[in-house]
């Protein structure tokens, strides 16, 4: 019995008949941060963090810093030189993904976050890497530190026309989902148009074949809360959406539908500037 998976993920794996494959890839999930993973983390200028706030809403948040701001400080511990997102309780479960568009590598580290002198630490419970499927390649042009006046966040409860346009043009987003005993943050990528805006409060996307773990879909099966993060890679604008999602399993494949409850748009959410993308050869064509 592989304990890497929650009952929700196991149920999805069983429904799709991929238990053996999932058990195989599940063996790659450990609580140890290997040297190769530690070196990768230290080279990253960004980390995507998923967590529930004090109200129980799930958010996916972009954290940035000079490479080295995320650092393994022990075999199971990571130190992050950034504040936990506002409203995130101390000692809360978090799911993080470190994704490097330069090399199309990504790794995930899930555990418990606690505030520290430097920012916060994460005690790792699950550490693993995924393949480059659907990752767009981008070069890092550097950073443009924002003035304090431009980080003002704009809150809402549905998408503005401009936000809807951004989402329809997106090739990447991150999705945080909650489980009874943890949080997971995953990546979704595709050619522009892979995310549909059905109404100002409803998004949907086709679930492309991945690693067969079904951590995100499993969490949605059990809980349903989700937080999405869209980035403007060239200007640094971030768009965070919090709400609920469910997956429909049809003969044509799987479609996940997300209902928007809250939005936060931050014009200068990220100081990082990236090149236009080189799309992943794995991206299916979009209508």
């Amino acid at each position: 019995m592989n304990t890497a998976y929650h009952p929700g993920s196991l149920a999805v794996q069983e429904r799709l008949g991929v238990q053996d494959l999932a058990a195989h890839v599940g063996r790659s999930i450990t609580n140890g941060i290997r040297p190769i993973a530690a070196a990768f983390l230290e080279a990253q200028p960004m980390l995507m963090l998923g967590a529930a706030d004090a109200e129980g809403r799930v958010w996916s948040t972009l954290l940035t810093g000079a490479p080295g701001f995320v650092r393994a400080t022990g075999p199971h511990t990571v130190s992050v030189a950034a504040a936990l997102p506002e409203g995130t309780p101390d000692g809360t479960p978090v799911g993080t993904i470190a994704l490097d568009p330069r090399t199309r590598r990504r790794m995930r580290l899930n555990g418990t976050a606690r505030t520290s002198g430097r920012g916060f630490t994460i005690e790792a419970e699950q550490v693993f890497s995924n393949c480059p499927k659907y990752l767009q390649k981008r070069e890092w042009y550097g950073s443009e530190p924002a003035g304090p006046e431009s980080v003002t966040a704009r809150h809402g409860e549905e998408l503005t026309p401009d936000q809807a346009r951004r989402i329809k043009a997106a090739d990447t987003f991150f999705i945080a989902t909650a489980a009874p005993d943890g949080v997971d943050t995953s990546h979704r990528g595709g050619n522009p148009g892979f995310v549909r805006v059905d109404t100002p409060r409803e998004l949907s996307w086709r679930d492309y074949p991945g690693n067969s773990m079904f951590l995100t879909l499993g969490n949605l099966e059990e809980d349903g809360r989700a937080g999405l993060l869209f980035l403007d890679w060239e200007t640094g604008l971030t768009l965070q959406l919090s709400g609920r999602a469910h997956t429909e399993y049809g003969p044509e494949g799987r479609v996940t539908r997300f209902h928007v409850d809250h939005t936060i748009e931050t014009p200068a959410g990220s100081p990082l500037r990236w090149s236009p993308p080189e799309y992943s050869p794995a991206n299916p064509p979009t209508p």
Partner: protein
Amino acid sequence: MSAIGTLATHHVGLNVTDLTRSLAFYGDVLGFEVLGEGAEKDSRYAFLGQDGRLVLTLWQQSEGTYDSGRPGLHHLAFEAESIEHVRAAEAALTARGASFAYEGVVAHREGAASGGIFFHDPDGTRLEISVPKGAEAAEAPSETAPTCGFF
């Protein structure tokens, strides 16, 4: 060139736990013919090959499962005649329910022409069937290692 001269890989011997099961895998699924079988005390062995040429010897003298963390074999790679032959092997292995390290045909590196399939025998021993060119359209599971993630 040293006094020893050129050395080429001849055949590879693998430890197995159940020779009957392994013969079904290497013989029926991958198409090797049995050139000879034998037994010594409490171990059995078989010689497998193609067109009478010895490729593989299997020795039933082990217990447990393959351990990638122990010294010895990292993986055994076979070169196929074409990418179509690799896909035929993939279909046969999928039909038998073999375990794959990565979904389908993958390139050895991002943009590389060489690539193939990575899978496991019944004891978990890591195997590869690849071609030097023809995998251009396949994606690379990672830039350095033919596995799904980079560690």
